[in-house]
């Protein structure tokens, strides 16, 4: 018997859950690295342009779609574009499922670092047993020793259990948790800022973050980087926002909701940048444009150099990462759960069991290679290569493709004027007609340009991964690409047709 759909208890609950979904590991560490790479303060101009002209409009469209259809992403898209729409909805969710799997593996590593922060992480060196390296400097040594040990598998299972525990009753159990997690994240981040800017010359780190270097403004990669940052940071194309908004009444104010969620998310990046940069400047640590490196090596190095309170700030930092990651991962898991419940009318218990078993298997698959193949680098070993390749396709391409098709379908098939009318009826903030142009023309063109640029790069530089492929598996990059493309396409087609045969796909 189909379960009754719930509803958010309060606007605040929805806002906190949606912003908690958007604020994740990438906000805390990757934004700063991106800003540094792309000209520091100069990055803010394309970043804010991307926020206003891409991020907020797509977020409004996704939230509007959820509230309008009262359905999870695939069935909401079906209402827009029929079976083709449902197919792209499932395809997006399957990309999201791949991402969820390795995201939870990374969260398990965060747990491992949190445990290490009680002491071992701050010792001068570690004997990395897996690689036979004596006396490797920490935190790098500890990190690789930890992720190559078997107990990581237990951590993966624990993180999955935490996710299932939080989403067990859907939004009814998600709402109270995010009401605690999200304010706590802000408090912890403010503590880190205070610690950062009160370090010797920490305030110069703030100058470094915000002082623009305009020499990069004519570099298209900077603009592409800003659009990608906004798109991914706001969890667009994942189906999460549509799923969350489907638990709001149709008459809710999605324009204001979008504005708040987008600004809180980017505001968090703003303050996280200040905290991270003040630490980096004070201890002369050069940032690297990698989330793993920033999260597990660079920032811990800064914490380790603190004159006092190393353990306390280390625990605080990794606990912050853990709750930020959890508030994002539960939204990814819930987007999948909601879609399965809506489509098949399964009992929640059955959906949870299915998601947990398949998801855990996926996360374990990402954790296992570096445990089995005990070599130190991803280059030329299995190590982190699998995670790298899947992330490249599912995250960097899958979500952009979903965003592009989603905008075209909402823009032309729904059409977007219908959503705009509904949104304007329910909001004090009225969307101008330019919103329709953005969804129909400008954003699809921008996303298509990013995809074209990426394809062009592959044609000129070779297949992604060919420069760090395995000695014994030169075809792995192609296999990963094929598994991603055929896997997501095949399963999405199967899910779409399955419902139609059972008669469950009949929608208004």
């Amino acid at each position: 018997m189909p379960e009754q759909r719930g509803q958010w208890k309060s606007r605040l609950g929805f806002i906190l859950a949606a912003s908690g979904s958007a604020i994740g590991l990438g906000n805390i560490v990757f934004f700063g690295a991106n800003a540094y790479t792309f000209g520091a303060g100069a990055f803010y101009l394309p970043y804010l342009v991307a926020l206003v002209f891409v991020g907020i409009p797509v977020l409004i469209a996704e939230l509007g779609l959820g509230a309008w259809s009262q359905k999870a992403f695939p069935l909401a898209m079906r209402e827009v574009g029929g079976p083709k729409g449902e197919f792209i909805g499932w395809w997006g969710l399957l990309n999201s499922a791949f991402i969820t799997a390795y995201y939870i593996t990374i969260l398990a590593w965060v747990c491992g670092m949190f445990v290490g922060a009680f002491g071992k992480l701050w010792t001068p060196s570690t004997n990395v047993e897996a690689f036979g390296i004596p006396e490797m400097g920490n935190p790098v040594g500890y990190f690789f020793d930890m992720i190559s040990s078997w107990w990581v598998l237990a951590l993966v299972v624990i993180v999955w259990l935490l996710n299932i525990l939080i989403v067990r009753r859907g939004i009814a159990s998600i709402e109270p948790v995010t009401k605690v997690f999200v304010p706590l994240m802000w408090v912890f981040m403010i503590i880190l800022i205070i610690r950062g800017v009160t370090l010797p010359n920490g305030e110069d780190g703030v100058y470094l973050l915000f002082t623009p270097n305009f020499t990069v403004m004519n570099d298209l990669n900077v603009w592409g980087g800003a659009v990608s940052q906004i798109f991914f940071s706001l969890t667009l194309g994942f189906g999460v926002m549509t799923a969350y908004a489907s638990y709001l009444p149709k008459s809710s104010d999605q324009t204001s909701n979008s504005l708040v969620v987008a600004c809180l998310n980017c505001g968090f990046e703003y303050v996280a940048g200040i905290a991270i940069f003040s630490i980096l400047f004070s201890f002369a640590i050069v940032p690297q444009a990698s989330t793993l490196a920033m999260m597990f090596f660079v920032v811990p190095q800064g914490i380790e150099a603190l004159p006092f309170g190393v353990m306390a700030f280390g625990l605080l930092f990794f606990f912050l990462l853990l709750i930020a990651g959890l508030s994002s991962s539960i939204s990814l898991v819930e987007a999948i759960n909601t879609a399965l419940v809506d489509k098949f009318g399964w009992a929640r218990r059955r959906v949870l069991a299915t998601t947990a078993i398949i998801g855990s298997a996926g996360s374990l698959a990402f954790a296992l290679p570096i445990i089995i193949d005990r070599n130190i680098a991803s280059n030329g070993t299995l190590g982190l290569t699998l995670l790298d390749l899947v992330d490249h396709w599912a995250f960097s391409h899958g979500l952009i493709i979903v965003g592009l098709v989603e905008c075209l379908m909402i823009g032309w098939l729904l059409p977007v004027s219908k959503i705009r009318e509904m949104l304007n009826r329910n909001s004090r903030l009225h969307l101008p007609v330019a919103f329709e142009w953005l969804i129909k023309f400008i954003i699809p063109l921008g996303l298509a340009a990013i995809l074209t640029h990426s394809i062009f790069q592959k044609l000129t530089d070779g297949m992604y991964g060919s420069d760090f492929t395995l000695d014994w598996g030169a075809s792995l990059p192609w296999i990963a690409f094929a598994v991603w493309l055929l896997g997501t396409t095949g399963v999405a087609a199967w899910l779409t047709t399955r419902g139609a045969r059972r008669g469950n796909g009949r929608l208004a």
Partner: protein
Amino acid sequence: MNRWIAAATLALVASPLSAEVAITVADTYPLFGEPVTVTVADDGVPVGSATVSAEYRPNSRTMVAEAIGTTDASGNVEWTPSDAGLVRLTAIAAGSEEAIASKAVSVRYVSFPIEGILTMLIAGIILFGGAGLGMSILMREEKIPEEEPPST
């Protein structure tokens, strides 16, 4: 490489260029535009004739490389930072092309640049002003209204 992995493994395999050779800067936080002495020493013994260079904003798309000079018999060379921010100093031994030592240094700003203040303010006003505006509209009605009964 992508956003998650890049440089993660590099950090692991990277080791000090030389266990003994070290670069020291007279002022831990040199000031932009103010000369400072850079010393290259091998386990306390000065390294003369070493070529020292600076990379401003290393690992970024705005990185600028600059030659500083050659160390004297005391292993010293004078450096006047031409920009503030993070800088990587590298020393290369005479007659060699390989770096023998490297050090990251934070060069202080003379004052908070006006364009930096403007960027910080504009970004802050847009982000927190936007969140505040939206919240003020939403919080006028905290409870979500019950869904209207379906029309028949």
